[in-house]
């Protein structure tokens, strides 16, 4: 099964004729993802290495019936692209684009939620279900199929932990990069809920960072609703307050959002937390070994 993307994914790539859009669309296809269409306004009728390009998602929908969109258009046009995808009937939107204004995302979030659309990102590396489908920029070669679901606010940190897991012989069901922006479409809780419901996922790693209170909320959710063991890691243990650490959402405001508070919230609910990526990976490997 896996979550969010899998063999049933039919992908349309919005912004497929851009440099990065094309590179990753083809890389995703090479991995086995069913890339059925691309969209670039004004380039309808063209093709990118065999992938038909349409002027609008509506046109792509009529011809190729995608169910998932990957948004790779520049920040100024990305909100529009997400609305376009939803309007055309796309069920899952994975938005890689970085730098979308937060008020745009606020409106988009409140627009898509009652419509039942899944949005991952923005400013995220995408979603990879090893052996099934890869939508986004996650380097699939460092992951392998297995029982561990991985959800993270940080892209490269995910690769780091995934890499360590793979080296320890532990594979993954799905890797979800939820993105580091203040408003993201899929929260930790959303991903945890899906992992809990996914029969192929038996363990979960949650990689958080400073800022906001999503990790604390996830801790409560884990305690109340999860039967599968969860291991955590929180980046930014030494970050100073009041400074935005790269991700727009990674900022300690006053006394809220510290790594310490998050780690304590998780541990209070029985979640084991690693103090660095290597330690977190080892905690998971121990759990997997113990369950064998």
């Amino acid at each position: 099964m896996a979550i969010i993307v899998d063999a049933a994914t039919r992908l349309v790539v919005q912004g497929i004729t851009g440099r990065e859009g094309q590179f990753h669309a083809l890389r995703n296809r090479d991995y086995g993802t069913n890339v059925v269409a691309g969209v670039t306004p004004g380039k309808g009728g063209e093709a990118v290495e065999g992938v038909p390009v349409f002027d609008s998602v509506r046109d792509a929908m009529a011809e190729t019936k995608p169910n998932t969109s990957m948004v790779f258009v520049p920040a100024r046009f990305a909100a529009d692209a997400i609305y376009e995808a939803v309007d055309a009937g796309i069920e899952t939107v994975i938005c890689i684009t970085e730098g979308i204004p937060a008020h745009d995302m606020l409106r988009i979030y409140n627009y898509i939620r009652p419509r039942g659309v899944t949005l991952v990102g923005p400013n995220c590396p995408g979603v990879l279900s090893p052996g099934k489908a890869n939508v986004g920029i996650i380097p699939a070669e460092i992951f392998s199929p297995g029982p561990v679901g991985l959800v993270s606010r940080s892209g490269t940190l995910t690769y780091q932990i995934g890499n360590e897991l793979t080296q320890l012989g532990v594979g993954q069901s799905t890797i979800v990069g939820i993105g580091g922006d203040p408003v993201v479409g899929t929260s930790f809780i959303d991903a945890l809920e899906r992992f809990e419901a996914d029969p192929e996922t038996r363990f979960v790693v949650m990689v958080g960072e400073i800022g906001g209170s999503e990790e604390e909320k996830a801790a409560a959710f884990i305690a109340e609703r999860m039967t599968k063991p969860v291991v955590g890691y929180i980046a930014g243990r030494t970050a100073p307050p009041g400074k935005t650490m790269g991700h727009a959402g990674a900022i300690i405001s006053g006394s809220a959002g510290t790594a310490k508070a998050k780690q304590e919230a998780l541990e209070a609910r029985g979640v084991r937390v690693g103090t660095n990526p290597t330690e977190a990976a080892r905690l998971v490997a121990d759990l997997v070994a113990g369950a064998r």
Partner: protein
Amino acid sequence: MDLYEYQGKELFRRFGIPVSDGRLALSPEDARQAAQELGGAVVVKAQVHAGGRGKAGGIKLAASPSEAEARAADILGMDIRGHVVHRLWVEKASEIEREYYLSVTFDRGEKKPLFMLTTEGGVDIEELAATSPEKLARLHVDPLVGFHPFQARWLCFAAGIREPAEQKQVIAIVGKLYETFVSCEAMLCEINPLIVTPAGEVRALDAKVTIDDNALYRHPDLAELRDLAAADVQEQRAREKGLAYVKLDGDIGILGNGAGLVMSTLDVVAQAGGRPANFCDIGGGAQADVVVGALEVITADPVKAILFNIFGGITRGGEVARGLLEALERIGIDVPVVVRLDGTEAEEGRRLLAESSPANVHVESTMLSAAERVVELAR
């Protein structure tokens, strides 16, 4: 982007939120002149991005222009929690009958704007929320439907503001604050305190406004304020190069791709006993020139060693290695550089480094070993 109080008040004024008359002053002479123009008692206020200005002595009352000049001389150059005072806001002194607190911010959990209003003004809002939540009226706004006056009325009633004339003013201010919040794409608009004068006038005595950096392209007028607001020249230079950079107080330069990985790198360096000098995220898909620029920025800080931690996704190892080699040649970096390359085209990057093998470059295969090595080399 955080605005200074005087910039926030200028915005408030633009949107019709009442503030006191005031002038910006960059010198004691300016402050005297400002006090003269304003007439009567004035308040001289340090303009820094730090809380607790008052306690730190950054806000002083002055009864006359000459007193204002003297107070300005005291405050200019002060260090308030690491922020040196270069600017003052001199404004007419206000008589205060009561102090309230009003803000609108992003509720990241609910994904809706959140208003908070309390008549317990001047206090720490987080503390109040924790200790006396019943005193804090909270209200979410649906960003698609927008703000409606009934919400402001409800906030007033919930906060216990019942005097009709006062309520009317607060309701108007709530509406205008939402307009400011949305029109300027702010992440936070806070008035603390919102005062009521003995004459019953309601006015914003302070202004804390944070604008979404990602939205600045739509607000050239606000973007201009950034240059004025820039606390740190180096941070601004980094931003111009498209880098996320934060200055810290240690001696090990930290460079990586992706905010999470860089934060994590700071953590492991600290665990290994080192002290990072900075945080520098080259982002995703950086080309060699970005790497060169990043090295320029972090070596402008006094660093004893540099840790280069790259796990490539969209970023390619070859580009990073080329950028590093180019920077070594161009900028002449002589401190030790520990490099850890993984992910996309990592072999290519490692091969390039091995071929060139500069004396001060040390390649490590894991993040932990790289952290340990750089701490060792920085000793």
